[in-house]
């Protein structure tokens, strides 16, 4: 390609031509002057020639682009309010939409990173997370025995795998490592698990059916993430022996990077272990108990199989299996067998614990974000139109002076693109920051969430393209229409109106935005107040200076008869820590996330007729427990050190228990138990103040506390398994004298001294525990407030746009009014009146919607009625104030119009 010539070079050539032509003409006999004149005549207008040369070159295009860009930037800089508003609108729209959609996509829509996820089917809705016994109604968790039965009695699966519903923490230490065992998450899976998912090991081999036989050598797979972060991709990890809860386990393979398991969870597993070694590592033997249900199932369905038939077949299988166990389950359970159901559902996106929890909220968010994008586009359109209108005169003059029309359109186009790019850059920044913030807000307290905090590029592109297009269309439209008009018309000042105050869709939109922001602000106000009430309520225990330490002696291999000395040692050793005032332990602490419930039978009262009628929470506690957590004993006595396995069985009940079961009698001295047959198990010796152990927004549940070591000899295997398990108190609670700063390290050291294999799973202050129980509420409050603010901001921008538009269009009318004697105040009043009419309609629409929404939210509100005129009025006042701020500038602009100038015809 030839490099283009400079204009100067071309000019020199033309001048040399003129000289030579003049030479020739002189030779032909013309005189000096005439020769030059003729030469010039022949060549034509020199400037025009140069112009044509310039136009034909590519540089001209670039030159003009540079000019356009410079001009655009100057124009935008000259109108900072417009630029800022438009860019901000764009940034919010692009950023918020992308961030929210990225999250929704990851949680709700993405498939598992496995082969052909559409072939995967799961059983049930995965609502139950944990270990269960008894009837489930609609089943999702199954026992190992039931899994094997269903696997062998259902046609149509290539493979049906089972895996732990609730992967838990275990103590892990690489053999030979000097460190104390670390707490890691492990999931027990069936031998065909990796075959079912079609996932191959990244290094080494995957667990297979041979590993999942009783007596097989214990093996495990490690996640790529753990291998990388904990062991720096050390190849010797493969084949190394790890100590897991005291058992020697060989690592045989590494999972591929990016594989996070059978479902999206915060804190995904670090290790996968075959079901067969559960008794060795878990020390519980869940695998061998047919009545403990703790496994989810996922199957790969053959392409020609009918899923409906398979579902029916599995349901029949379930009932057959249950019938086989009815003798052990007892007559009450057996009567319920015909009502037990089971269904298959698509499992391609994984077991949806996260999805189930967040689905409704996320879908609402998605709807709102779509709405936000729509509003953003409309507001942007408004702003661009106002700007185009303001430029009309200038455009007409440019046209009249002979500016090329294409050039004007191009100028408008350039400006729109520059604006879109500025807004887009802001949007990208908001999208990145927003996705990160949303993730950490939604999954507060998680160590790791397998969702990339990078915004979804497709969504980012989409939002950017939509807003770019809007900017272009509405930015160029004014230049385009000006193009078609006769410049003279525009100069004369026709085409202005007196009546319209923005088009109907524009006004409708502003009304809707006002209504929406009122609704969101009112909701945010109610939820904020409700959260504040939750945080400052009387919990029934004290949080200040209290710490909860979670341990699991079961995992460290302790047998039941070793427990009493262990807990004595823990209590005695921790009490010696500096600033510790009191130490105790319980099966679970308040707000620790755990809960044990049972149906009680009161001695002398009829046993419960229906399952769940006398549902009560229960707990096992050590001596000094109530004193340590700050719950008062109202009557009678507390659990004492003298209450041991061999002494009289006693219980402390809470006020709710006393109210529920002894409304008219004195509970002290009465007996009750966990089964009708055992209704004389415990004697009530004390009544404790009501304390909240579960959700802070729920009323206190009836609850009883028994000494840690007192065992009731139940005659059912399932109940007995739970009874044995409950002897392992998981939460050690401590009360410190003052807010001791670094208590974590001394606590860990003390435990390492007691037994290095006793893994400290977590250390949390009571304050943190209460906070984490409120994390969902906090998140909802934050998001609602954020959206309320966004809506308010957008509504203000919209109102500003529409008002500016109407002022621009009505400038002549306003001029006439001023000329006829209207003073500035009345002009400002007129503009404000028009704007406030829109706001008033918005309020009129918004108030009933806000009330209706508050009423629906009513159940979620704590300590505040859904009907709260103060909050509603406050929201209305904020909206009105923002409307004033948004309209005062255009109103003052209208008042400042010079009547002479507007009347002269712009």
């Amino acid at each position, binding site marked *: 390609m*030839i490099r*283009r*010539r400079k204009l100067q070079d*071309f000019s*020199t*050539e*033309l001048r*040399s*031509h003129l*000289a*030579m*032509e003049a*030479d*020739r003409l002189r030779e032909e006999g013309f005189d000096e002057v005439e020769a030059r004149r003729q030469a010039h005549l*022949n*060549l*034509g*207008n020199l400037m*025009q*020639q140069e112009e*044509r*040369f310039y136009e*034909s070159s590519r540089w001209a295009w670039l030159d003009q682009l540079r000019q356009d860009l410079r001009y655009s930037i100057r124009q935008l800089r000259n109108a900072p309010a417009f630029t800022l508003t438009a860019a901000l609108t764009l940034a919010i729209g692009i950023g918020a939409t992308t961030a929210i959609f990225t999250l929704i996509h990851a949680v709700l829509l993405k498939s598992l990173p496995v082969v052909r996820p559409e072939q995967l089917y799961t059983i049930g809705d995965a609502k139950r997370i944990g270990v269960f016994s008894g009837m489930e109604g609609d089943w999702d968790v199954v026992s190992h025995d039931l899994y094997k039965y269903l696997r062998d009695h259902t046609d149509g699966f290539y493979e049906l795998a089972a895996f732990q519903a609730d992967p838990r923490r275990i103590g892990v230490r690489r053999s030979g490592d000097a460190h104390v065992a670390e707490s890691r998450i492990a999931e027990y899976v069936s031998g065909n698990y990796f075959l079912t998912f079609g996932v191959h090991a990244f290094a080494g081999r995957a667990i297979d059916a041979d590993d999942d036989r009783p007596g097989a050598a214990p093996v495990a797979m490690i996640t790529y993430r753990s291998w990388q972060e904990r062991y720096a991709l050390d190849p010797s990890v493969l084949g190394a022996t790890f100590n897991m809860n005291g058992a020697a386990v060989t690592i045989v393979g590494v999972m591929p990077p990016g594989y996070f398991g059978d479902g999206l969870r915060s804190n995904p597993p670090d290790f996968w272990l075959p079901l067969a070694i559960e008794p060795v590592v878990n020390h519980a033997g869940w695998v061998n108990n047919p009545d403990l249900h703790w496994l989810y199932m996922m199957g790969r369905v053959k392409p020609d199989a009918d899923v409906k038939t398979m579902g029916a077949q599995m349901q029949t299988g379930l009932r057959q299996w249950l019938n086989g166990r009815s003798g052990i389950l007892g007559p009450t359970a057996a009567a319920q067998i015909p009502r037990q159901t089971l269904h298959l559902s698509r499992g391609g996106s994984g077991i949806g614990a996260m999805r189930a929890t967040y689905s409704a909220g996320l879908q609402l968010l998605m709807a709102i974000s779509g709405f936000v994008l729509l509003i953003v586009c409309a507001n942007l359109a408004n702003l661009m139109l106002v700007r185009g209108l303001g430029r009309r005169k200038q455009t007409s003059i440019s046209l009249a002076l002979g500016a090329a029309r294409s050039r004007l359109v191009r100028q408008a186009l350039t400006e729109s693109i520059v604006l879109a790019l500025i807004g887009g850059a802001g949007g990208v920044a908001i999208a990145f920051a927003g996705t990160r913030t949303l993730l950490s807000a939604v999954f507060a307290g998680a160590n790791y969430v397998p969702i990339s905090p990078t915004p979804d590029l497709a969504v980012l592109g989409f939002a950017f393209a939509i807003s770019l297009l809007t900017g272009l269309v509405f930015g160029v439209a004014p230049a385009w229409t000006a193009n078609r008009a006769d410049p003279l018309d525009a100069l004369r000042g026709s085409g202005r109106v007196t009546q319209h105050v923005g088009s109907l869709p524009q006004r409708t939109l502003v009304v809707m935005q006002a209504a929406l922001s009122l609704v969101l602000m009112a909701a945010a106000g109610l939820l904020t107040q409700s959260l504040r009430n939750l945080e400052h309520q009387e919990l029934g225990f004290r949080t200040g200076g209290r710490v909860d330490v979670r341990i699991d002696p079961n995992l460290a291999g302790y047998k039941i008869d070793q427990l009493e000395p262990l807990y004595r040692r823990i209590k005695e050793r921790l009490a010696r820590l500096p600033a510790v005032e009191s130490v105790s332990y319980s099966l679970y602490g308040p707000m620790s996330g755990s809960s044990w419930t049972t149906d009680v039978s009161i001695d002398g009262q009829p046993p419960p007729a229906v399952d769940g009628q006398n549902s009560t929470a229960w707990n096992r506690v050590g001596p000094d427990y109530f004193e340590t957590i700050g719950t008062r004993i109202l009557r009678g006595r507390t659990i004492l050190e003298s209450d041991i396995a061999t002494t009289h069985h006693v219980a402390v009940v809470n006020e709710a228990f006393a109210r529920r079961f002894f409304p008219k009698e004195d509970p002290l001295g009465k007996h009750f138990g966990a089964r009708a047959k055992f209704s004389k198990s415990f004697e009530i010796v004390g009544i404790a103040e009501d304390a909240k152990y579960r959700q802070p927004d729920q009323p206190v549940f009836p609850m009883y506390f028994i000494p840690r070591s007192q065992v009731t000899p139940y005659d059912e295997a399932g109940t007995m398994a739970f009874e044995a398990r409950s002897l392992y108190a998981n939460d050690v609670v401590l009360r410190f004298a003052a807010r001791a700063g670094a208590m974590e390290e001394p606590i860990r050291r003390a435990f390492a001294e007691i037994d290095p294999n006793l893994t400290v799973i977590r250390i949390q202050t009571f304050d943190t525990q209460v906070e984490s129980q409120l994390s969902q509420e906090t998140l909802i409050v934050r998001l609602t407030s954020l959206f309320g603010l966004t809506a308010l901001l957008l509504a203000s921008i919209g109102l500003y746009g529409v008002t500016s538009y109407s002022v621009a269009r009505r400038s002549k009318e306003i001029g006439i009014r001023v000329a006829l004697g209207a003073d500035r105040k009345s002009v400002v009043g007129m503009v404000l009146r028009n704007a406030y009419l829109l706001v008033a309609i918005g309020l009129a629409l918004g108030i009933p919607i806000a009330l209706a929404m508050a009423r629906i939210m009513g159940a979620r509100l704590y300590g505040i009625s859904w009907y709260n005129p103060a909050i509603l009025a406050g929201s209305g006042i904020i909206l009105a104030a923002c409307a004033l701020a948004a309209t005062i500038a255009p109103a003052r602009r209208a008042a400042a119009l010079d009547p002479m100038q507007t009347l002269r015809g712009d």
Partner: protein
Amino acid sequence: MSTRVALLQGTLDLLILRTLLFGQQHGQGIARAIQQESEDVLLVEHGALYPALQRLEAKGWITAKWGVSSNNRKARFYTLTPRGRKQLAAESSQWRALAAAIGRILGSNEGSS
């Protein structure tokens, strides 16, 4: 002067290439050569000549460099490139075919005037 004919659209390029077949030449020389060789029948508008040269140069059919003319003036000399030579051959034959066809049509009326 009245016998001079304005050039048909597209023919100027052909004539420039043809002129350069005999060696390098500057703009004014090309214009003069066309005028002389057509025995003053064809009028080359000097205003159209330079954009045409510009165009041909961009297409890579001619190249240019600065030199000194016979009467010692600085001038930009144009040379035919091999691609330009090929183009000339193609356009010449096209032109001949076109001229012959038009000539045949017009020829039947020639005698009657």
